[in-house]
C-alpha cells in the first residue's frame, strides 16, 4: 500500500458506557487523559497515513472540533452517519471518499502503530481482497468471534453461542473498493448492516493477522482497566506544567495530572488515577484508580476508588465512593462480580457527606443530596434527596 488512506468509524454512542456517553461519544472518552480516538489517529499517522475519513454520528461536533484542533497537519474529512444502522452502514458513508486499498479502523478501541503495520504488511504479502486483524479477548461473546482456515477468514460470528473460538475481530482492516458492492449485497440483520457480514461477500480471499496492542474500553470498569494497562510501565507521575499541585500532595507513579488542574494539600492520587483538565481536588481527598474528567470539582476529604467522574461533575466535601465486588447491569445485560466503584456522569452534583455504594451510577446532570447513602443507579437529570 502506497499513500495509504484510512476510514475511522466513530459514529457510535457506546451504549454500555452510558451515562458517560450522554454528551460525548465513546471515541472521546479519556484514556490516560487522551481521547480514545487519539490513540487510533496516532497509530495511523505513525505508520504514514496522511488522509483520514472519519465517520461521525452521535455528538459528532465533539469529535470534529477536537480532531481538527489536535491534528492540524492531517488531511481530515468528516462524513456523517445520521442513523446508526451498523458498522457496514457506517463504512458505506465513506464510499467515494477513499482510494483503493484503504484501512478501516474502529475509532473507539485503543490500538497501536504495530497493529496497523501488521495488518498492512499482511495485506501486501498475500495480495488478498481484504485483511482483518484478530486478537484474543477475555469476553469473546461481546465481539465477532473469528474462525480461521489456514490463515484465511472462514467466518465471523457476531453472536457466538459458545466461546470456542477465542479469537475476535479487533476492528482493524484493509479493504479494497470491492467492499462497497459487497456491502450492497449483504443482508441486513434486524435492520443493521454489519461490516463483518460483508466479508463473506467479498470476491477474493480474506487474510488475517494476530495483533496484541488492542484494548477496548467497552464498560466503565473496562475504561479503568484500559487506563491502567496504558499507564502500567510508568515509573513517574506525569504532571502538566500548568497544573498546581500542593507540595504536601502525594502523586503516585502512573498517575496523570492534566493542564490547569489544582490539587490541594494532603491529597493522595493513586496509580491509574487521571485528572483530565482544569480539575480541582480539595484538601486531603484520596483518589485511587479513578478517572476524573475535565472541569470536575472534587471537594475536601473526598474518597474515590475505581470510579469515573464525568465532565463538569461536582462532588462536595467528604463524598465517599467505595469500591467493591458487585453485579452491574448495562444496556440490558448483567455483569456479575465486577470490581468497581461508581460513575458520576457529566455535570452531576453530589452533596456533602453522600456515600455512593459500589456499582451505583449517577446520571448526567442528576443531583444527589447531602448525606444520601446511594444504593441504586440514578437516571439522567433526576434528583435524589434522601
Amino acid at each position: 500500500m502506497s499513500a495509504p488512506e484510512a476510514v475511522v468509524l466513530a459514529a457510535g454512542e457506546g451504549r454500555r458506557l452510558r451515562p458517560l456517553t450522554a454528551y460525548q461519544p465513546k471515541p472521546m472518552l479519556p484514556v490516560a487523559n487522551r481521547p480514545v480516538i487519539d490513540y487510533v489517529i496516532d497509530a495511523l499517522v505513525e505508520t504514514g497515513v496522511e488522509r483520514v475519513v472519519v465517520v461521525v454520528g452521535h455528538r459528532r461536533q465533539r469529535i470534529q472540533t477536537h480532531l481538527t484542533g489536535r491534528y492540524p497537519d492531517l488531511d481530515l474529512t468528516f462524513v456523517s452517519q445520521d442513523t446508526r444502522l451498523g458498522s457496514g452502514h457506517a463504512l458505506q458513508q465513506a464510499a467515494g471518499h477513499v482510494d483503493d486499498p484503504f484501512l478501516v479502523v474502529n475509532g473507539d478501541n485503543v490500538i497501536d502503530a504495530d497493529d496497523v503495520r501488521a495488518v498492512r504488511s499482511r495485506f501486501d504479502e498475500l495480495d488478498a481482497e481484504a485483511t482483518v486483524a484478530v486478537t484474543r479477548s477475555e469476553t469473546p461473546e461481546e465481539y465477532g468471534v473469528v474462525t480461521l482456515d489456514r490463515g484465511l477468514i472462514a467466518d465471523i460470528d457476531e453472536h457466538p453461542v459458545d466461546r470456542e473460538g477465542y479469537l475476535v475481530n479487533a476492528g482493524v482492516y484493509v479493504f479494497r473498493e470491492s467492499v462497497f458492492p459487497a456491502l450492497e449485497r449483504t443482508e441486513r440483520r434486524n435492520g443493521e448492516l454489519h461490516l463483518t457480514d460483508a466479508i463473506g461477500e467479498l470476491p477474493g480471499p480474506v487474510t488475517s493477522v494476530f495483533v496484541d496492542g488492542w484494548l477496548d474500553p467497552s464498560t466503565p470498569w473496562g475504561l479503568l482497566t484500559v487506563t491502567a494497562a496504558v499507564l502500567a510501565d510508568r515509573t513517574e507521575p506525569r504532571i502538566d506544567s500548568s497544573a498546581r499541585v500542593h507540595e504536601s500532595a502525594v502523586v503516585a507513579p502512573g498517575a496523570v495530572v492534566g493542564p490547569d488542574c489544582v490539587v490541594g494539600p494532603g491529597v493522595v492520587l493513586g496509580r491509574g488515577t487521571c485528572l483530565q483538565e482544569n480539575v480541582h481536588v480539595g484538601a486531603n481527598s484520596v483518589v485511587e484508580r479513578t478517572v476524573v474528567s475535565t472541569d470536575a470539582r472534587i471537594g475536601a476529604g473526598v474518597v474515590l476508588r475505581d470510579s469515573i467522574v464525568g465532565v463538569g461533575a461536582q462532588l462536595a466535601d467528604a463524598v465517599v465512593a467505595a469500591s467493591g465486588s458487585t453485579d452491574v447491569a448495562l444496556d440490558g445485560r448483567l455483569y456479575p462480580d465486577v470490581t468497581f466503584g461508581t460513575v458520576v456522569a457529566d455535570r452531576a452534583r453530589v452533596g456533602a457527606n453522600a456515600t455512593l455504594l459500589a456499582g451505583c451510577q449517577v446520571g448526567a446532570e442528576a443531583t444527589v443530596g447531602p448525606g444520601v447513602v446511594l444504593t441504586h443507579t440514578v437516571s439522567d437529570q433526576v434528583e435524589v434527596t434522601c
Partner: protein
Amino acid sequence: MCGITACVSHGGSIQPLLEGLQRLEYRGYDSAGIAVRNGSGIETMKRVGEVEELVDAVDHLSTESAVFDGPVGIGHTRWATHGGVTDANAHPHVDCTGEIAVVHNGIIDNYDSLKRDLEDRGCRFASETDTEVIPHLIEAGLDEGLSPEAAFRAAASKLSGSYAIAAIVGDRDTIYATRSGSPLVFGLGQGQSFLASDVPAFIQYSDRVIYLHDGDVLTVDLDGYRLTDSAGRPVDREIETVDWDPETATKAGYEHYMLKEIHEQPMSLRETIRGRVGGDGGVDLEAFDPGTFADVDGIHLVGMGTSYHAAMYASTLFTTRDVPAFPYVAGEYGVIKPPVTEDTLVVAVTQSGETADTLDAVRRARAAGARTLAVTNVLGSTITRECDDALFIRAGPEIGVAATKTFSSQVTALTLLCERVVADVTSRRGGDASVLDAVSALPGHVQEVLDTTNAEAVAGDFRGSRAWLFIGRGLGHPVAMEGALKFKEISYEHAEGFAAADLKHGPLALVDEDTPVFAVFTGRDDEATLNNVKEVQARGAPVVAVTDDVDGPIGEFADYVLAIPDTHPDVAGILANVQLQLVAYYAANLMDRPIDKPRNLAKCVTVE
C-alpha cells in the same frame, strides 16, 4: 478594505496567488483580479464576484489558449470603497502603457488631487478607484528617467492615507511592495516568495515570515529579497516562524465556519484562560506584574462592532468595581476627543489588530499622553506595535465574518485584566475569588450550553418575524447589543438591542406580537428586567428569556427559555451570548443566507 497577494516562483505564480486570494476572501469578496508577468508582458484578469469566478475564468482561459501564468504575479480581492463593484474598478490597476500593474489595500486620501495632476499631464484613467493613481505615478517616474525601484519609491512618497501596495513594473521579474497603516507580510519559501495582507494566504507554502513595518520597501525577485526603509537604507527585520497551519482554517465537517467557531469556544476559552488564573486567587497575566496598573486613575475602552460590545462589557465590569471606565466607538474617539492624562489607560479592543478606526483612536490617545494597551487576537498585528502593551486573547484564527469565539475570548481576557487592574488600583491582594472560579468554569459552562441548547427550535418557531429585539440590563446590555448585531450581520433581518431600562422611552413602540423580544438575565437586577418582560408581554410580544432561572419566576413568565448554567453574574453574559449566537446562526441558516460571507461586510475593516 481588501486583500492583496503577490508571488514570485520559478514554478509559476498563478496557483499560489489564486489559493491565497481564496484564503483572503474574509477581507472582501465583491470582485477579484490578478496580474502575471510572462514573456509577452503583463496580463491581467479581473472578475466581479467571489474569487471562485476568477478561478473559473483563469481555468477557462488556460484550457482554451496559452497557459495564463508567469513567474511573477500579484492578486487582489476587493471590498469596494471608491467606485462601484465593476470589472473596471477591480484590481490590479495598470498605467497607460499596460507595463505597470498595482494592487492596493487601504485608502489614498489625496488621490483626488494626484489624479487631477496626472490627468493634466495626459494620463488616462480607466477606473473610479483611488488606487489607479499609483501605477500612473510610477509611470510618471519612469518617464522622468528613474529606475523602477526609484519610481516606485517616488510614487509611494506622494501618497497620504493608508496603504499596502504590491507592484510589477516593466520587464523585470521583480515585485515592489510597501505599506503604511495597512497590513503586509512577507513569506519566505523554497525557491519562491510571497506577500499578502495576512499569513493564511501563503501559510501552506511558507511559515517563515517578516511583518513589514510602515515605510518599509521590499523588492523581491527569483534570486532573493531586499528590505529597506523609505530613505533606501537597509533594514533588518526578524524572520518569525508562524505556528498555525492552513488546516486549522477548514470547516471541520461543519456547514459553516461560524458554527465551527461557535463550537470551538470551550477550547478557545481554555486557551484564553490557560495559566492566567493564579493559585493564590489572583490573576497571572504574562506581561503585567502586580502593581503594573497602580497609577491608573481612569480607563477608556475603544473598539468597533463586536469589539465595541466587548469594550462596553468591560467598562461596566471596571465601573462596578469602582474604577472609572468609559467605552467609546473607536471611530468616534477622535471626533469627541475625550480628555486624557498620563494616568489614563486606553484599552484598544480589536480582533485583527488592524482595525483602522481603532488604530486611529490609539494614535490619538498616545499623542495626548495616555498609556495604551491592545487586546487582540493577532500576534504581530499593527495594534501591538502602536500600543505600549498587548494582551492576547489566544482564540485562534477566526474565519467567519460574524465574530463569535473572539467576542467570548475578548470579554474573558478583559475580565482577567479587570481583576489585575482592580487589585493594583485598590492595593488589594488577589482578585475576587468567586469571579475567578466562574472564569475557570467558563469553558465547561459554554460546552454545557452547546450540549443542551434549544436555540435551533427557538429560531424555527420565530421564523418570518417582523423584527427581533434584544434587551438587557447592566452587563446584559452589551450582550443584547451583540445579540442584535449578530442577527443583523448574518440574517439581514431587522434586529435591535437596547438597555432594558430604555425600552419604555421609545423602542416599545416597535413591539407587537410579531416581534420576539430576547431578554438577557445575568443574575443581577433581574427583577427589574422581569418587569420589562411583563411590559412587552402586555403588548403581545413573545419573550425569550436567556437565564439560569429556568424553574423560577423568570422561566415561569417567559414564553421560551434559553438556559445557561448558574454562574457568577460577571460572566453569565458570556454564556447568554453563546445562546444568542446560536439563535442568529440557525435563523440565518433557515433563510439560506451566506453565513460566512454576509453581503457588504468584511472580516477586518482596515479603512475608516
